């Protein structure tokens, strides 16, 4: 019986395609792809319906569906277009087949329903699978990218290293930060590490605890931590929460922290040439040129 139904469906291919196109065009206005041109939409519809029909006829291998879905994903067609399209196809095909049967009986109709479902279901399953695989792939790539960005360590001078932190710190990230920090201190031979929390939106007891642990561990290695970038509202929360930061030197800006770091490492920034001096020289006003 399945073979008969298939024949009916294929014989009335033109009719099904026409009906399907009508339905899907109506959905187009409501749902999606307003920016996709009508031409593209139509040609894509044609391809889509052919893929479905081929797969029903039995010569549409999974590979054909896979190629089709790959292209759809690549071009950014929404998944809802695919699922809607297949559901509409199911509806239209059922209508057509039932229209061509002389006396529809209850049992026969349920058989027909079962068959048509068995045509459409594997296609839906495969297409949705392809889509979700591609999404998962994107998510995992983004997670890796995020991790790369989550705890960078920048050696700015001999013995001075900066770790700028941006974004919320959770337990997993705190662990990662600590590992990176300690490895970096060893690698760069750092004497002072500046942890910049300008980009950390909230400092609660947990974040403070993690920061403390990291700085304590750094101290065990033999380096010093300076916490910089403490904004007024963060200072307020820290005091209101009763967190004790007295063991840890803190500064409001990276600049001030850097000066402290220079002090600790016995360094000083020397201006090679004073600005007024160089202007004097330019105008020939400095003492050296006067003598000449």
């Amino acid at each position: 019986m399945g073979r008969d139904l298939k024949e009916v469906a294929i014989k009335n291919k033109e009719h099904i395609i026409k009906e399907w196109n009508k339905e899907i065009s109506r959905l187009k206005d409501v749902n999606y792809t307003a920016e996709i041109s009508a031409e593209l939409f139509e040609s894509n519809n044609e391809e889509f319906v052919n893929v479905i029909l081929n797969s029903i006829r039995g010569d549409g291998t999974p590979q054909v569906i896979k190629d089709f879905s790959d292209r759809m994903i690549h071009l950014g067609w929404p998944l809802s277009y695919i699922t809607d399209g297949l559901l509409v196809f199911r509806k239209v095909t059922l209508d057509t087949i039932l229209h061509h049967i002389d006396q529809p009986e209850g049992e026969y109709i349920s058989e027909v329903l079962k068959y048509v479902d068995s045509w459409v279901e594997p296609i839906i399953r495969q297409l949705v699978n392809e889509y979700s695989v591609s999404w998962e792939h994107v998510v995992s790539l983004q997670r890796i990218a995020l991790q790369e960005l989550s705890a960078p360590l920048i050696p700015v001078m001999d013995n001075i290293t900066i770790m700028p932190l941006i974004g919320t710190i959770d337990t997993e990230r705190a662990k990662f930060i600590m590992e990176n920090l300690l490895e970096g201190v060893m690698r760069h031979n750092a004497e002072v590490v500046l942890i910049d929390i300008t980009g950390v939106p909230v400092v609660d007891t947990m974040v403070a605890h993690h920061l403390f642990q990291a700085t304590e561990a750094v101290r065990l290695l033999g380096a010093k931590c300076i916490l910089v970038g403490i904004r007024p509202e963060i200072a307020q929360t820290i005091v209101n929460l009763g967190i004790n930061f007295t063991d840890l030197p803190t500064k409001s800006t990276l600049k001030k922290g850097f000066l402290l770091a220079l002090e600790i490492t016995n360094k000083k920034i020397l201006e090679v040439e004073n600005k007024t001096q160089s202007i004097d020289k330019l105008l020939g006003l400095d003492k050296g040129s006067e003598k000449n």
Partner: protein
Amino acid sequence: MRIPILKLHNYLLISIQTELDDQTAIQFQEDLLKEIHQTEATGVVIDLTSVEVIDSFIAKVLGDVVLMSDLMGAKVVLTGIQPAVAMTLIELGIHMQNVPTALDLEQGLLKLHQELGE
């Protein structure tokens, strides 16, 4: 297994190359104090670069050694604590608050030099 203690000018150098067990640690504590007494050293550097595990007991012994040496007039600096070791110590809640530390032997000696003002 005894840990060798080297004398360098006014300082004592100890490089711990084996995993410390409890017995060795206690023995080391005794040896070091005896050595400080004999040599009248003013500074001690204990290098832990090759130590991969420090448990709470060893940490306590090391902390005690620092305090005891201090009482005998010798400053102690621990150097070369590995990142993994530092992390486990912090996770165990052992902060070794009053123990001076340095990154490596060189900086440890510098630190001693500064603190003793020699």
